[in-house]
């Protein structure tokens, strides 16, 4: 037998490869995936299931299974690129423990039950609770991962039909400060700019925003711009060193909470150097102040209402005297020269500047304020609403904008306007075909207070969809104990077992994103449609249809008349009536179905890329800018001071606890941990500790550390010089792992204006365990 030289090399090499691979990864099998036997792949478009970026995906379908993913080259968001979660997103459909049957708790045991029977029970239990305890004893808790139609029918059922404002969504924990920031500064929610700003800007400043991991596709777009142009700068302004800091041209670290002071100091410098764009400020800006010492909401029944007072530029200038770079340097730990450098970048008339932020500024006990303060910077120099000049609030979830903010699935909101406004109630009552008296003019509970009400017993029935609050609520012990109380009835629509599923009395099997038709709305006002791409397994049902089934059982057939074949389109057409004006018109169903997402306002077949600028925005009037959201048609600069965090480190609890995400896992990991490649990349959570703190405490990488706060403790492995590095005096814990419930340690303090909790700052101590 002849063996050629080539074959010999080949076989020798094969053996050595197998050997070296086995050494590197003992136990990883090199068998490829299980094959499905079929002819070819058909590609179907959908938005990605995960973050607020809203990448377009093409899902490869073979038979009735999703088998592959590629980036949708027609989608302007990602232009054919995805991140590792997006590429493997379809694998979330196929975890072995997928919930496919309804479950009902009978004598303490969860028992498989016919879906019809479970839906009957949900409806009758809700009716019974209303009868015994009043309409405000039942609640719905939804999600920024809800499809738009899910949120819309919940609002119609709870606010229009039942007549309670007990409707909240997890976006309260994620985007509420962004919303109140927009409303106070501009009078209308959601960004003025769009992702095209990334291709135009000369300078990017990321405010407490690890984009490299949390919005990776946008980060790549930023890097591509930098690579193409040579002069582009990325400045990472953060409390911890991350992959974003590593890729940035400069990393500036500040002490937690002092972003408030630094933002004011940047404005102080802009005024001192006369970098103010006076033409813009005189024509388009007005100055305002609100209350100070506004509290932290840690007590039950906490109430706060801001009181606005107009002031002038001189008052603003005097207010900023407290924020000289030298004074702020002491408080923030940011050298005065770095503050001046940031101010010079914002102030340079030849540079287009885009600021990005997300949870760092929103999950903040002064979240509304810090949003206002970054708008202040952009407004002083007039860098807004033009390509590349953009204060850009990124969203976390795929439809936090589309479903929660636009449909208004929050206690005070309606699909158009707020419940307190009579006109908004009348419009909703007319479109919904309900008596206007049904809609309660008084908001009830925001999310934290809603779970407090559940604990107290003011709420007895809660239906939870597409979210996992038994992992994500801050000060978790209290809220889990509340949910488990005997006379509380918890309904959970889920796809997999989770800690929230564990406290349920009824579990309804839900259809996943591409198993049903739906819509998401991303960070840049883009509405994205997906058709049903694969069949639903078992008894799974879309969240929208579950709500419709229950509503009909409660006697609201008239309000929920749609057929199962066309209900998504019918709901879209009904919902569209709420936004039928040039400020917010949504694209028609057929356009959304045909294209990879369309931005509102969508007027006469055209998307709006930059709002408040008459060149691009059909609702804007005049020559250059028109901030039509406010009655004075100006953008508002707010005098917002620095105030300390709700809980700061002290001698007993000497460390800041900061929590967040990692690239590979989506929120609580209930989906991404079931994706092999993602789980294998980050199989468990850990606590990042600064190397100096670790060596002082005798902690080594991989050793166990007990993290305790005044509320709870978690013992987990230490990570030193791993993916991120907190400064001395701070630890960071990713919250995706249900085995290490870090939210048992976090504090349920929130921004008094937005009611959004701060997951980034509370005090803990560390012990070797």
């Amino acid at each position, binding site marked *: 037998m002849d063996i050629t030289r080539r074959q010999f090399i080949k076989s020798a*090499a*094969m053996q*050595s*490869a197998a050997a070296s*691979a086995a050494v*590197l*990864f003992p136990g*990883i*099998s*090199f068998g*490829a*995936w*299980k*094959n*499905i*036997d079929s002819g*070819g*792949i058909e590609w179907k478009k959908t938005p990605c299931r995960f973050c607020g970026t809203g990448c377009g995906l093409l899902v490869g379908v*073979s038979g009735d299974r999703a*088998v*592959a*993913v*590629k*980036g949708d080259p027609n989608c302007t968001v990602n*232009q054919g*690129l995805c*991140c*590792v979660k997006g*590429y*493997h997103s379809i*694998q979330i459909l*196929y*975890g*072995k423990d997928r919930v496919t049957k309804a479950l009902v708790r009978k004598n303490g045991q969860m028992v498989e039950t016919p879906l019809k029977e479970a839906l009957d029970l949900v409806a009758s239990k809700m009716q019974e609770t209303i009868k015994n305890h009043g309409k405000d004893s039942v609640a719905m808790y939804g999600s920024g991962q809800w499809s738009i139609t899910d949120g819309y029918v919940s609002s119609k059922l709870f606010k229009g039909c039942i007549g309670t404002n007990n409707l909240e969504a997890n976006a309260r924990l994620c985007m509420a400060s962004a919303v109140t920031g927009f409303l106070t500064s501009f009078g209308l929610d959601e960004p003025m700019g769009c992702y095209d700003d990334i291709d135009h800007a000369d300078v990017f400043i990321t405010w407490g925003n690890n984009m*490299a991991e949390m919005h*990776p596709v946008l*980060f*790549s777009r930023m*890097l*591509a711009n930098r*690579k*193409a142009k040579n002069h582009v700068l990325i400045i990472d302004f953060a409390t911890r060193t991350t*992959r974003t800091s*590593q*890729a940035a041209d400069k990393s500036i670290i500040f002490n937690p909470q002092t972003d408030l002071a630094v933002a004011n100091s940047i404005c102080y410098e802009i005024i001192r150097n006369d970098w103010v764009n006076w033409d813009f400020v005189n024509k388009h800006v007005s100055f305002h102040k609100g209350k100070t010492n506004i509290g932290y909401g840690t007590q039950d029944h906490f109430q706060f209402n801001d009181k606005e007072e107009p002031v002038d530029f001189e008052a603003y200038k005097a207010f900023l005297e407290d924020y000289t770079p030298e004074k702020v340097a002491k408080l923030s730990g940011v050298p005065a020269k770095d503050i001046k450098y940031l101010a010079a970048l914002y102030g340079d008339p030849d540079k287009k500047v885009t600021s990005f932020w997300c949870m760092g500024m929103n999950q903040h006990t002064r979240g509304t304020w810090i949003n206002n303060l970054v708008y202040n910077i952009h407004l002083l120099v007039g860098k807004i609403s033009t390509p590349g000049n953009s204060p850009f609030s990124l969203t976390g979830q795929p439809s936090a904008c589309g479903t929660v903010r636009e449909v208004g699935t929050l206690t005070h909101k309606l699909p158009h306007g707020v419940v307190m406004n009579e006109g908004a109630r009348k419009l909703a009552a007319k479109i919904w075909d309900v008596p206007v008296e049904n809609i309660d003019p008084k908001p009830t509970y925001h999310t934290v207070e809603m779970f407090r009400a559940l604990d107290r017993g003011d709420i007895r029935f809660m239906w939870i969809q597409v979210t996992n609050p038994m992992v994500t609520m801050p000060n978790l012990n209290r809220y889990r104990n509340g949910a488990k109380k005997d006379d509380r009835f918890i309904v959970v629509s889920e796809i997999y077992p989770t800690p929230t599923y564990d406290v349920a009395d009824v579990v309804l099997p839900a259809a996943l994103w591409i198993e049903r038709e739906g819509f998401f709305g991303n960070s840049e006002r883009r509405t994205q449609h997906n058709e049903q791409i694969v069949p639903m397994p078992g008894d799974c049902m879309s969240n929208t249809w579950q709500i419709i089934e229950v509503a009909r059982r409660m006697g609201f057939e008239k309000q929920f008349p749609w057929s199962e074949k066309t209900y998504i389109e019918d709901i879209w057409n009904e919902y569209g009536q709420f936004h039928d004006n040039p400020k917010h018109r949504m694209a028609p169903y057929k356009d959304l179905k045909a294209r990879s997402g369309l931005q509102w306002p969508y007027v006469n077949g055209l998307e709006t890329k930059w709002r408040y600028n008459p060149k691009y925005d059909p609702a804007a009037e005049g020559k250059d800018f028109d901030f039509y959201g406010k009655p004075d048609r100006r953008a508002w600069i707010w005098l917002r001071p620095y105030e300390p965090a709700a809980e700061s480190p002290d001698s007993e609890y000497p460390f800041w606890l900061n929590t967040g995400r990692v*690239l590979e896992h989506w929120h609580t990991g209930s989906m991404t*941990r*079931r994706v*092999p*490649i*993602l*789980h*294998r*990349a*980050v*199989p468990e959570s850990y606590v990042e500790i600064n190397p100096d703190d670790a060596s002082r405490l005798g902690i080594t990488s991989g050793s166990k550390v007990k993290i305790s706060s005044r509320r709870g403790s978690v013992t987990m492995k230490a990570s030193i*010089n*791993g*993916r991120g*590095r907190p400064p001395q005096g701070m630890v960071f814990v990713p919250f995706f792992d249900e085995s290490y419930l870090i939210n048992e340690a976090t504090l349920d303090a929130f921004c008094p204006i937005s009611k959004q909790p701060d997951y980034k700052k509370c005090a803990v101590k560390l012990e070797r365990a």
Partner: protein
Amino acid sequence: MEKSDRKLGKVFLIFAGICIVALPLIVFTAFSFEPQEMEMTDVQARNMDFDSNGKAIFVNYERISKDYLEGTSTARTLDEYYSRRQYTGSPPFIPHKVEEPDLAAVDCLACHARGGWTEELQKNTPITPHPDQESCRQCHVTSSEVKLFVETNWMSVAPPRLGRAALPGAPLPIPHDIQMRGNCIACHVGPGTVATIRVEHPSRGNCRQCHVPQTNAPLFERESKPG
């Protein structure tokens, strides 16, 4: 005498100068001997495809040394190649350790843009077909755990079968999607590639002159026109 001394001194000085300049170069070349690799710096556009990046791909092809083109020392098999993927075309995981150096970015492209021998892993480095993407670990992640959180029912279609020419001896069609994989030579040429899919005629630069994408499109049929 004095003059010739000075002359000698000058010569010596020049020689010393040359030595000083040349020595690091010699040392450097000695240590970086391994195959002349690819230069991929010209490619700018995102999510590159041959159709929009043909020129850049040609420029890079021109720069590749003959040694590299004909390199065959690969240790990779097709099985191993697919075992790192969840479906054909998915981003493979990183099969080696990645240190996160303190406060410095991990530069994957230092090796994966150009290829070449790595002492540490005793292998030739495979080359990325999309070196324009810098944030590599956005898609490629390491693997540190064997056990799954929950078992999965995942399935995908079989990897494309090789060698399916339309006629005996005809050029093979391209059996895979070319989005982000438009630069054929990255994966089909050189010592870092999978042996089974390495081409035997690497010196022909214009691959798609003979190899065309294979699709599921139905055969052409002329639409019948009225009348």
